[in-house]
């Protein structure tokens, strides 16, 4: 059995799976249930200035019969009194001292407010802080949340205030509502944050009710941009994470990865790109806390299979596998191959290639089943057919190098090699 326990800046948890700061972590009853279910830690729902929520707060994107492929919300930070939150935090820590208890903060925009909040939370038993510089709605209008995260200099200033006071590790949570998370990431690392986490939610409109013509979620005839999350945002989160892991400054601090994590596989992907722990919100909101069981078991089995004894053995292993386009090997060439024994003659590969790719699949009409074969000479190896084929391992991509040696775009140009061969 592999050891899946995590040590994040000295904050220990039996597994690297934390619940992200959100409704699942906004009160004692949820958090105790989460710990009983086996979650390694929680980031307590953001505490800070007093707010008032609206009713009707969530909406979702369904896809192909699956519910909640993407999720969005227009909720604010915790709307419960601070004193009650602090009391409950203390009680949870007492009952589950082996779990990570991070408290998310978003104070009013002045040093005193931050210092006061930090003091109270440390006294309550917090093991670490996460600074919410990401919330894209409601709080930004008051100069908080994403308004801070989007401006590296404001973020730097707030982190400096925090570091003056905090005696426990500080994680800064980054907003994805920027063209790059690196400038803010750099600023806050320079200001002393002990770690980063990303991503918070992405501004979005999930859809429009075609009867009322009002976008979702519907609040008395109107809507606002909501924060998008869930499986749909994972690719975007992974991209932002990579840029943090590859930057000289930001890669110096540990990262907690967030955004669309639903399974152990998603978690492993975040960790391969440099996350030391992952945080989950939407998947828990869709299925409940029980999903953590398979996350732990799946991670364990995968690590055993691959021979990783502890999570540090694989964290970050894919970071250097993402390179610049101009460093890719142009002599690498693959072509599709159809396993005729597996093919069910659905024609999806054919129509995809014929209509939208390179007309590289041959069709032999049959009744009722047509036969499909690859025209190897015309196939550019784009992967499209393999991606749309409904049968596992039916289409495989086979390597047929153009030439044995590595050559990249710059070298190709320098040598005056031919372009536009397709």
């Amino acid at each position, binding site marked *: 059995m592999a050891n899946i326990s995590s040590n994040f800046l000295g904050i220990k948890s039996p597994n690297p799976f934390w619940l992200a700061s959100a409704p699942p972590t906004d009160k004692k009853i949820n958090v105790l249930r989460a710990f009983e279910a086996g979650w390694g830690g929680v980031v307590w729902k953001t505490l800070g200035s007093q707010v008032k929520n609206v009713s009707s707060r969530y909406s979702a994107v369904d896809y192909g019969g699956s519910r909640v492929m993407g999720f969005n919300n227009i909720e604010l930070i915790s709307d419960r009194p601070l004193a009650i939150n602090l009391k409950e935090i203390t009680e949870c820590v007492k009952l589950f001292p082996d779990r990570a208890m991070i408290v998310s903060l978003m104070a009013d925009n002045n040093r005193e407010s931050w210092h006061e909040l930090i003091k109270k939370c440390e006294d309550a038993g917090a093991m670490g802080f996460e600074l919410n510089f990401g919330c894209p709605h409601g709080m930004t209008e008051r100069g908080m949340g994403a308004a801070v995260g989007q401006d590296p200099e404001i973020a730097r200033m707030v982190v400096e205030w925090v570091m003056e006071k905090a005696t426990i590790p500080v994680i800064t949570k980054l907003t994805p509502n920027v063209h790059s998370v690196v400038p803010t990431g750099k600023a806050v690392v320079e200001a002393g944050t002990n770690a980063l986490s990303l991503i918070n939610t992405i501004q979005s409109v999930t859809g429009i009710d075609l009867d009322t013509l009002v976008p979702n979620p519907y609040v008395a005839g109107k809507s606002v941009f909501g924060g998008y999350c869930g499986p749909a945002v994972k690719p975007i989160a992974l991209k932002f994470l990579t840029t943090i892991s590859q930057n000289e400054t930001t890669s110096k601090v540990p990262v907690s990865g967030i955004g669309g994590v639903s399974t152990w596989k998603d978690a492993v992907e975040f960790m391969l790109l440099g996350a030391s722990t992952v945080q989950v919100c939407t998947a828990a909101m869709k299925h409940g806390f029980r999903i953590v069981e398979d996350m732990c078991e799946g991670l364990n089995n995968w690590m055993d299979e691959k021979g990783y004894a502890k999570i540090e053995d694989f964290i970050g292993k894919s970071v250097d596998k993402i390179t610049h386009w101009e460093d890719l090997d142009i002599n690498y060439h693959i072509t599709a191959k159809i396993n005729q024994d597996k093919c069910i003659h*659905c024609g999806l590969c054919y129509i995809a290639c014929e209509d939208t790719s390179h007309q590289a699949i041959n069709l032999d009409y049959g009744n009722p089943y047509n036969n499909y074969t690859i025209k190897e000479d015309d196939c550019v190896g784009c992967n499209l057919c393999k991606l749309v084929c*409904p049968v596992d391992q039916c289409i495989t991509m086979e390597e047929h190098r153009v030439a044995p040696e590595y050559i990249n775009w710059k070298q190709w140009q320098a040598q005056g090699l031919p372009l536009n061969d397709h």
Partner: protein
Amino acid sequence: MLQNNRLTEAEYKVNFSDIHPPYTNVNAALVDANRCLFCYDAPCTKSCPTSIDVPKFIKQITTANIKGSAHTIFSSNILGAGCSKVCPVEKLCEGSCVYNLLDEAPIPIAKLQRYSTERAIEQKWKLFTRKPSTGKKVAIVGAGPAGLSCAFNLSKEGVDVTIYEKESKAGGLMTYGIAAYKVTPEFCEDEVNYILSIGGIEIKYNTALGKDITIAELQSQYDAVYLAFGVGLARQLSVPGENLAGVVDAISFIYELRSKGFSSVPVGDKVAVIGLGMTAIDAATQAKRLGAKEVTIVYRRTQDEMPCTQVELDIAMLDGCKLSWLAAPKEVLGSDGKATHLVCTKMKLGEPDASGRRSPIETDETFTLEVDMVIKAAGQMPFEALVKDNNLNNKSGKVSVEGKSVTSINGVYAGGDCVNGGREVVDAVQAGKDGAASILNFIATNTTNEH
């Protein structure tokens, strides 16, 4: 003893309730619809005699475009609602769904088709607009699936259609022949009304070709004639005792069952059904469902050669019908003019015949079944006299056509069971479409318009 009213109303209701119940909610339909892969040049479509664009209509269910879905179905098959209930889909669309190749259950195409089309009929969606009348007139004989399909496709193009129908209701075997647990009389009526709602189609009921009208008369009054009068009663057994009371024809038996109440149709205690086609299965299962104590299907060959599908056979078996394989009727014995025993010859299989099936050969052995009812269901007989009297080229009474629907008489077309000798509703619908296409072509090129 032949006796009616064997069961209570409640029992009849259960026995003849919908054998393939519909989806009860949209979610159930969506689960199945979303499984469809949206195949290209889809095998299911190619295996539908009317070429319904199955992936398209299923996709339209997933996009909540049910009107579009129904339109897609009806464009290819105006009896798409009826077909969704009566087609032997296991040998048509669903039989070739690609999921079969993954050893997975195929997409329930018929059930999904029913989902869209039933809504269209219930809510009377107007999905087609008739072109302005061209003044061309076509007469159709028979308001069964072939006739209705031809009428709809002609009327859509602005042709004025008159259908001559010998019965008092339209629908043909859909209304009078198909098993009661597949379609109800109300459904058949609604379907016919939905088809007729395009306008431009008049049906003259209780008017029979050969009795009330002739082809020559029709030709003189119309630009073209389409024959779709189907086939007649079940084949004779040609064995001694065939005229004893209790020996009945399957088509008449089912006609009664479909047109009168279940309780008024008499069945025996011990019933033998001769044949193993769709009709035989329907006769056997419905006899059982009317309260017959014992039903035995007598078939000349083995299960490998049977004309019905396994799904159909399973219905009969689940209803408790017995099977007597490799047996052919030799004689019906009786007393007081009533059938009491069926003597059968034991058969064995010989060489393959023209259809590729091994043909049965008589042995010297016989056996005897105790019976009080014998239902003849070994194929239907074409209306040979009618066809011959009208000087139509034919093969033992089946109207001969060139191409898909051109008969030996100029301007006279034919299709459906009267041409193919008896297949499925969906084949008749396609025949009606083909007939309409030929006729439209004929009246467009045939410029002499003397009316």
